[in-house]
C-alpha cells in the first residue's frame, strides 16, 4: 500500500471510530441525561412524566417519618415556596439531615408524591448540595444557608 493510501486508510479508520463513538455517545446521552427540577417546578407539574429526574431543596424539619419496616421513609423537600412529599425505600446517606439540603432522584407519581430511587449525600461545607442551594435561591427566600456550625470563620 502506498503511503498516501495508507494515510487515507488511517483517516478513514479514525473517522469510522469517531462516528461509531459519536453514535454510541449520543444514543446513550439521550437516554441517560438526568435533569434537575426545583420543588416549585415539580409542584406545578412542569416536569417530565414517566421519566426519572432530580429534585433538590431543603428537607423540611420534622417531616421525616419512618414506616414499620424501618426502611421506607417519607419526608418533604421544599424550596420555601412549594413542598413536595418524597418516599424512599432504603438506607439514607449519613449526611441526610432534617433542615439541611438534599437531592433525590426518582419519578413523580400521580398525586404529586415523588418516589425516589436514590437520595444523594453530596454537599459542600455548608451542608448544601449546589442544586439544592440553587433551588432555594431561585425561590427567592432567605437565601443560602450560612455556615454557622463552623468553629473557625476565616476573616
Amino acid at each position, binding site marked *: 500500500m502506498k503511503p498516501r493510501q495508507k494515510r487515507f486508510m488511517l483517516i478513514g479508520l479514525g473517522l469510522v471510530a469517531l462516528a461509531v463513538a459519536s453514535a*454510541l455517545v449520543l444514543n*446513550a446521552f439521550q437516554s*441517560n441525561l438526568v435533569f434537575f427540577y426545583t420543588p416549585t417546578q415539580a409542584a406545578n407539574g412542569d416536569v417530565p412524566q414517566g421519566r426519572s429526574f*432530580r429534585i433538590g431543596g431543603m428537607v423540611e424539619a420534622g417531616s421525616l417519618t419512618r414506616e414499620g419496616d424501618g426502611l421506607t421513609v417519607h419526608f418533604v423537600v421544599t424550596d420555601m415556596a412549594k413542598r413536595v412529599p418524597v418516599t424512599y425505600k432504603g438506607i439514607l446517606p449519613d449526611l441526610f439531615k432534617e433542615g439541611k439540603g438534599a437531592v433525590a432522584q426518582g419519578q413523580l407519581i400521580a398525586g404529586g408524591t415523588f418516589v425516589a430511587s436514590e437520595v444523594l449525600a*453530596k454537599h459542600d461545607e455548608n451542608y448544601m448540595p449546589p442544586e439544592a442551594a440553587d433551588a432555594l435561591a431561585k425561590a427567592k427566600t432567605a437565601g443560602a444557608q450560612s455556615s454557622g456550625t463552623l*468553629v473557625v470563620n476565616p476573616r
Partner: protein
Amino acid sequence: MIPEIGHYALILALCVAVVQGTLPIYGAAVSNASLMAVAKPAARGQFLLVLLAFCCLGYAFAEKDFSVLYVAATSNSQLPLHYRLAAIWGAHEGSLLLWMFILSIWMVAVSFFSTHLPDAMRARILGVMGLVSVGFLLFMLTVSNPFERLIPAALDGRDLNPLLQDPGMVIHPPMLYMGYVGFSVAFSFAIAALLGGTLDAAWARWSRPWTTVAWCFMTVGVAMGSGWAYYELGWGGWWFWDPVENASFMPWLAGTALMHSLAVTDKRGGFKAWSVLLAIMAFSLSLLGTFLVRSGVLTSVHAFATDPKRGLFILVFLAVVIGGSLVLYAWRAPRVGLGGGFAMISREGMLLANNVLLVAALGSVLLGTLYPLFLDALDLGKISVGPPYFDTVFLPLMTPAIFLMGIGPLAQWKQASLPALAIRLRWAFGVSLVTAVAVPWLMGQWTPLISLGLLLAFWILTTIVVDLRERLLQAEGGGGIGGRLAMLPRAYWGMVLAHCGVALFIVGVTMVKGFEVEQDVRMNVGETATLGGYMFHFDGTQQVNGPNYVAARGTFRVTKDGGEVTVMYPEKRRYFVQNQTMTEAAISPGLLRDLYVSLGEPLEGGAWSVRLYHKPFIDWIWGGCLVMASGGVLAVSDRRYRLAWRRKEAAVPATAQIARPTVS
C-alpha cells in the same frame, strides 16, 4: 516564624523556577553549554526549597499551629498525628503544595537519571518542567497560599473531613499525584523534542520508562481511590463514574494509549507525531483533573469552597499550557515526519486500533464529565449524566480493544497474515469460548454479559499462553524450559504480567456485576439474615470511644453451613468537631468473595437498618490493578533501559547532535 520560612522558600523556589524555565531553553536554542548547564543545579535547588516549604507546613500541622489558616481549616487538636500530617493534602492549598513537591521530586529524578541524554535535550526537558512549576508556584503564591496567617489565631481547628480520616487517604493522594505529575515528564520530553526538532526512536526509548513509571503510580492511585470509595463510603460500590473519578481515569486512559504508541515509536519509528500528541494530552488531562477536583467546580469530598480568582487563574493556566503546547505541536510536528509504512493487519495496525479505541473512550468520558459543567456555566439548566451512560458507551468500545489485546502481541510487525493468526489462535478462542459459557452455567446463572466478560478475560490469558509457547519453541539454546524462559526480556514479561492484570480485573468486574447480592434489612437484636449462603446474626451494638469520635459498634456473627466464618464489627461514628456522622463498614475480605456489612440508622428497641452485601471476586478488581502496575515496574527494569543509561560513559562528550543510541 516557621510558616514564614515556608512561604519565603516558595518565593525563592519561584525565582529558581523562572531561571530554570528560561535560561536552559534559551541556551539550548543558541547552543550555549553554560546556560544549558544551569538546568541541573536549578532543578535540585528548587527541590530543596520546595522540600523546605513542605516540611514547614508539616511542622505547622504537627505543632497544631492554628494561627495558620490552612491548618486551622483542616485539622484539630484532637486529630491524631498521622492524620494531621495527611491533612497537609486534605484540602486545596496543601494538595497544590503536594503537587508542587512531587513535581520537584520528578525534576530531581530527571536531573539524576538523564546522564545519557544529550545536553540540549536535558536542558529543554528540565526547562519545560521549570515552566510548569512557575505556573504552580505563581498560583500558590497569588491566590492559594497554604501559609496564610489567621489573626487572631483560632482556639482550635475545624477538623479534617471525617471521610478523609482513613489510612487509604494517607497514601492515595500522593500515589495519584505521582502519576499525574509523572506525566509531566513525558510531556516535557515531548515538548523538548518539538523544540529541538528531533524526534526519533531514541527519544521514544528515553521517554518510555518515565511514562511507564508514571502510569504505574497512576494505576495504583486510581485503584486506591476506588478501594477507598468501596470501604469508606459504606455503599459497597467501587466505581461511580463520578466526575472526580473520571478526572483521574481520563489521564490514565491517555497514559495507557501513550505507552502503547511509544512502543511503536521505539521499535519501529512510527506514530511519532501521535505519541507527542498523546503525551501532551495525558498531561493536559492531568492538569484538568487536578483542577477539576480541587477547584470546587465539582461538589464532592475532594472539592472545597470556590474562589473566583482561583477559577480564573486556573482557566488561564490551562489555556496557556494546553493551547501553547498544541500551537507548538501544530507548528513543529509536520517536520517530525512519518515512520515506516505498515499494513493494516500488523502489530502496528492493532496498536493503532487500540489507541483509537482508548482515545474514543477517553473522549466519551470527557464529554460525560464536562457537558453538565458547561451547561451549568452557561446557565442552560442543571443536568447530570448517570453511570448507565458510561457503562453503555464503555463496554462496546473496550470489547474490541481487549479482543485486539490478545492478538496484538502475536502479530508480526509491519505485515501479518490474518489466516495464519486465526490458525495460531483457534485453540485459544475455542478454549475461552467454552470456558466462558460453561463457568456461569455451572454457577447457576447465565447472562450474555457474564459470558462476554469471562470470554474476554480467558481470551487474554489463553492468547498469552499461546504466545509464550511459541516464543519458547523459537527460543534458541538455553537448555531446559527455565533457561528459555529466562531468555525472554523483562519488558516482555512486564507486558504479559500487565495483560494478566487486565484479565484479573475483568474477571473481578464481571463476577461482581453478575453475582453480587445485596440486601437492605431491618434487624432486631438477636435476629438473623441470610445472604449468599451466609447467615448474619446481629448481636446488637455497643458504644465505643475513639480519639475524636464516638461510635456505635455492631457485632455480627457470620456462619455458613453451621460453621463460624467470622465476626464483623461495622460502626456508625459521630465525629465531634464537625458533628458529622460516618458509616464505617465492616468487610471480611476473601480471595473468592467479600462480605460487607454497614449500619444504616438506629431504629427503636436497639434495632438497626442494616446493609448486607455478598460480593464475589471483588478484590480481583484491585488485585488486577496491582498486577498491571507490577507489570509496568517489571518492564521498566528491562536491560535495554539500563544499557541506555550506561551508554553515557561510552559516548563522546560533544554537541547535542551525536551520541544518539541506534535503533535495535
